[in-house]
Each structure stands twice: as C-alpha cells, then as structure tokens.
C-alpha cells in the first residue's frame, strides 16, 4: 500500500490535493482512499490530509502513521509543527517540500533526518494559474512518484475535483496545466522503499493510573494564560497594521478582538500581538477612524 500524507494550512489546498491524487489513482484502476482531518481548524491553521492507494481493497482508516511520502505544502510547518510533519518519518522517508530547490539545504537545516526533495509549487501555480493555488500542482508532483498513475488520469482528476469545488472551466484548465507542469518537473522519488514495520513489537497496553478527584479528574486548566504558549500568528493570510497618528484611543479594536491579541500601552494606544493575531480583520472592520489597514502576508 502507498500512503501519502499532505501537510498544509487551512485554505492552501491540502485537502483538494489529496483528493486529486486519490481520484487520479481511482481513474488509473487502483483501490484508493482519501481523507482530510479537519473540524475545528481555521484558515491558516495547520491541516493534514491523506491518500492511500493499493492494488487490494484498503482496510486501513484514519491517520497515516507510517507514510511512504510526506508532502509539505507550507515550509513554515517544518519548524512550527514538527510533531505533525515528522510523525512516523524515518531517515529513508521521502519528504517533498514546496520551495525553491536551490534553497533545499537552508530549508532543511537542523531538521530531523529524512530524504528531502524540493519543488516550487508556488512558482508553477503563478505561471499556470496566475495565483498561488497549489492543490493541482501538489497532486501532480506527487503522482509522478506513483507509476500506475498516468498524466491523462491526472488531467481528468483535476477537472473532476475542481468542478466539484465549484470553480469555472477556465480555472479547471489552468489547474490541469499546473498539475501537468508539476508532474513534468517533479523529482522522481522512489517511495516504495520506505516501508517500515512500525506495527511490530511496540508497547503493551497499560491501565490509566487512577488520579483521584483532586488533580485533573476533569479537563481543567489551572495554568492561567497558557493560551500564550501556542503561537497562532502563522495562521494569518492578512495582517492588521495600525496607524497610531489616526488612532483616537476609542478601544473598539481592543474590545472586539476575539483573541485578546490587541494590547494597550501605557498611553492606551493599541498594538497588535502578531504572535497570536490570526488575521480575522475584525479590528479593521470596527475601527471608526480607519486607522487600521490590511496587508497581505507573504
């Protein structure tokens, strides 16, 4: 069985990529399954999706613990969510990172050992679609590693999945071009060699120790302010920027911010905590003096 795990941020197309790859396998006559893990996630939050393919009916479900290939659509996740990206990764596991191949050494410095490859999906998307929609390119690059999948199947799969997501025929054609270009230039990765026997000889079960009623009998957090430990600033696709010369110190941004990411200084001027601001732009909407502008995050 071939198991591919995609890591991206909400809105970047990891789910659609896993579906295009799944549909490509389906159209090529393979047994396939694709799956995305979401629910509480938001645009910009780390998300993960999966595609399984085999010649036999698939009897595994859920999270892929032992991937044959990991695709990282947003390189910032390598450092920000290593627990997710490197889960079940061994030194021989191929990891395909969306980034400039010339920067592979810099991107992967200090990371756990793995078989790293780079392909610039953003560049392909810009050239073929005109915008950074990388689903089709990610699927095309991944399909290159699976000999049973033909370029014709990839084209049909892209059209089918893009139509399902409600985009126009013109955009579908551009996405097909993106997928085929990624397929053309993607590195040929041997993903079959990375098959490890994770399932053998691990821990036996053990009973949960009974803790009594005093500590953590229920899901209670005693550590006040612990939300600050989890940076969510990387979720932003846009950032609010405050022009303090226009600010009348009305506090509306401070009051409306749903993440308490607006802080007041000693003179009661607001400042954005960019480590935690998720870029919802409610402050921008509420500011009565237009002192807050929006800037795209690159």
């Amino acid at each position, binding site marked *: 069985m071939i198991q591919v795990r995609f890591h991206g941020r909400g809105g970047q197309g990891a789910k659609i990529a896993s*579906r295009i790859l799944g549909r490509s396998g389906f159209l090529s006559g393979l047994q*396939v399954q694709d799956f995305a893990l979401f629910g509480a996630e938001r645009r910009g939050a780390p998300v993960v999706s999966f595609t399984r393919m085999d010649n036999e009916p*698939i009897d595994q479900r859920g999270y892929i613990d032992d991937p044959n290939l990991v695709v990282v659509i947003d390189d910032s996740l390598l450092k920000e969510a290593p627990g997710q990206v490197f889960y079940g990764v061994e030194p021989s596991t191929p990891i395909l990172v969306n980034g400039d191949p010339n920067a592979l050494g810099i991107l992967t410095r200090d990371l756990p050992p793995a078989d790293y490859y780079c392909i610039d999906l953003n560049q392909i998307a810009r050239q073929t679609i005109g915008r950074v929609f990388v689903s089709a390119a990610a699927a095309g690059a991944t399909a290159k590693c699976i000999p049973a999948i033909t370029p014709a199947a990839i084209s049909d799969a892209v059209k089918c999945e893009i139509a399902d997501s409600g985009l126009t025929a013109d955009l579908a054609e551009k996405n097909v071009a993106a997928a085929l270009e990624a397929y053309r230039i993607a590195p040929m990765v041997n993903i079959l060699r990375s098959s490890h026997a994770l399932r*053998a000889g691990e821990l036996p079960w053990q009973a949960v120790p009974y803790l009594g009623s005093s500590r953590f009998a229920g899901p209670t957090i005693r550590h006040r302010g612990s939300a600050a430990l989890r940076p969510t600033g990387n979720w932003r696709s846009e950032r609010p920027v405050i022009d303090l010369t226009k600010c009348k110190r009305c506090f509306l941004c401070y009051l409306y911010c749903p993440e308490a990411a607006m802080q007041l200084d000693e003179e009661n001027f607001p400042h954005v905590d960019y480590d935690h601001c998720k870029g919802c732009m409610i402050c921008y909407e509420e500011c009565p003096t237009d002192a807050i502008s929006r800037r795209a995050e690159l």
Partner: protein
Amino acid sequence: MTRTMLTGNAAAAWGARLAEVDYVPAFPITPQTEIIDTLARWCRDGEMPAKLVMMDSEHSMLAAALGAAATGVRVFTATSSQGLVYGFEMLYAIAGLRLPLVLVNVSRALANPITLEPDHNDVLSARDTGFLQFHCETSQEVLDSILLGYRMAEHAKILLPVIVNLDGFYLSFTREPIDVPNLAEVRQFLPGFAPAYSVLSDKDSVALGATVLDPSLYTYFKHQMHHAAEAALEIYPQIVAEFGERFGRRHDAVEEFMLDDADYVIVMTNSFASMGKAEVKRLRSAGKKVGLARLRMVRPFPVDDLQAALRGRKGVAVIDQNISVGKGGILFSEIAAALYGLIDRPPVLLSFIGGLGGRRFRPGEFDGMLERLERSEETSAEMARPHLLFTAAECREVGRFFAVAEREP
C-alpha cells in the same frame, strides 16, 4: 450504476436522494454538516425535488421530522453526537408513534471533554428508543443501509424508525470508491412510500398520540413495539437477500470475517472494524486461528446470528467503542447475555474498551488481546470487568499536557 469516489457523508446524501425523500428538516453539526450541505445544494439546484428546511435546533428538527412523517411523506434527517442527545426526547416520541423515517447519525464522542472524533456513546444512548440501528463500516454500506432502512421502517409489520450510523472522520470525511445505483434500479427495490394511515389524509383523518394513563394500555403499546422489532429480525434476511440479488452486495446482520476455522473471535462494529480486519489478516498470516465478527445490526439485536458466529469458540473478545461509566462496554453485556444460555458458549469472554474519542489502536494491542484469549485461565472477575486500552506512551503524553495545564503563572 456509477462507480465514483464518495465520502461517508456524501454517500448518506446519495442514499436520501435515491430514496426520493420528500422532506428533510436539518440542523448542522460537525461532522454531519456535509450531508445537509450536499442535500441543500441539490434541492436548490432542482436536482432533488425535496423540501429541505433549516430548523433552530435538533429538538425542533426531530419534532418537524415527526410531524412530517405523520402526514405520510418520506422523511430523512441527520445529526451527530450533541445534536442527537439534544433532540433525544423526540426519538421516543417518533418511535412510539410508529413513524417510519430514517435518521443518519454521524458518531462523535460526547462532551465533556469536548472533542470531534468518534465513539458510540451517542448512538448507543438511543438503543432503547425503538429505532432500529444499522452501524456501517464503509461508505457503500451507508448508502445501501439508507435504502434498506426505508424498506425495513416502512414495512407494514415493522413501522419503526431507523438510525443509520457512520463514524465521524473515519467514514464521514473518508472518500472511497462506491457504486451509486441509478434511480430506476432503486425504485424497483424501494417504491414510493404508501403509509398505512396519515394525519392529513383527505379521506380518513385520525388523531395521533392519544394519552394513555392506563398502565396496561401503555404496556400493550410497548409490547407492540418490541414485537415489531422482533418481526424486523425475521423480515431482515428476506429484504437483505432481495437487495443482494438486485445490487450484488450482502449486508447481513452480523458480518463474519475469517471465522470458518477460528478458535478465537474479536467482535467489533462500525468503521474501526476495517482496521480490526487488517489486524486479523496479519495475525492469520502468523498462523493464529482468529477471526472477526462485525455487529452491523444493533437493533433489533441479532441473537441467533451472534450465537451462530460465536458458539463453540475457545475465546471471544468484544471491543466496545463506548463506555457505560460504572459498568463497561455496552455491547459486551448484550453479547454475554446472548451467549449465556448456550452449553457450548465460549469459555473465555473478555471485554475491551477501545476507540474512545477516536483513539486508534496501538501496535501490539490485537496481539495482546489474542494472548489474553489464548491463556484460557481467566477468572470470573477478569471476565466481568472491562479492560481499558491505553499505553505507557500515551500516559507519558498525557503527562506532558498536564504539565502545561497545571503550571503556575
């Protein structure tokens, strides 16, 4: 017939569409929302001539389902977890009025602690309501069970509503290849609903839900429901055989997997049974005589089929993806009762609790369960208590969360 890729949720929507349901009261909840989202799109675009109404809660949703079903139209609705328990009162009301509708439940563990992934405390809370219950392993089974569900529910000798259950995430968001039958084929199997009576009939008006203060009358109607569920047990094999002839797929009340010469049997339900089958295959290739029985029909409880699958075995392990706090696995208790009267009942019968809140099985756990069965020297105390699956590694991981949760600022 079209072969395509569908999630469990999309398969549920297709089931409702192919059943040509008339009315869909709806309220969204993760992980069920994709079902009503899909149906709403089809209704809006004229692809499905049903009336879909967004309600203000699951209680209202199920009340509307009740009212609509009473008028004699075919009703479909769907919820999950918190939504099911919020509308819980209406489940008894619908079943007690003998209204044959289909409700899809997308299993999600109940709060608190709040989570999104599946276990079966939600759907099994409805086990005593009078709804028949089909628990699905695959997307295909979800679609098929909705069609089977209407045939069962609307059968003149049954007239009980049906819950079709699928696991959130593991099935609801998982796409796999499935056969979507065409409408003409489905109409042959499932003609339009012809109710025995309805409130809004222009000929014979009736009053539904009369108050019954006489205990004997109350008892009479509850017995009627139980007899109807027993009748469902008799009728199901005929309907499932007819379905098999038409569509080439069998959905027996208990699915037997590698059971032929098995000394040891693991009992599971729903989508985690796929992973159980993979483990059984692995253990088989290591020479172990083990098989899996999947309980597909939970209500009515298929006692005869379970006895046939489990009698004469050396050991049986029941994996419950639920926990009745203070007792243990709900299905274990029911299966133990089903086996008790047999002279050749399995000498070892063990209860394991797994998959709570979507917890996946860890490597070695199936080997460990089989070892326990093979030991064949279990005490009555060990057989009476539930064994809660957890690992030392998980304990350490939980400790890491606790360290954050309790640190003084």
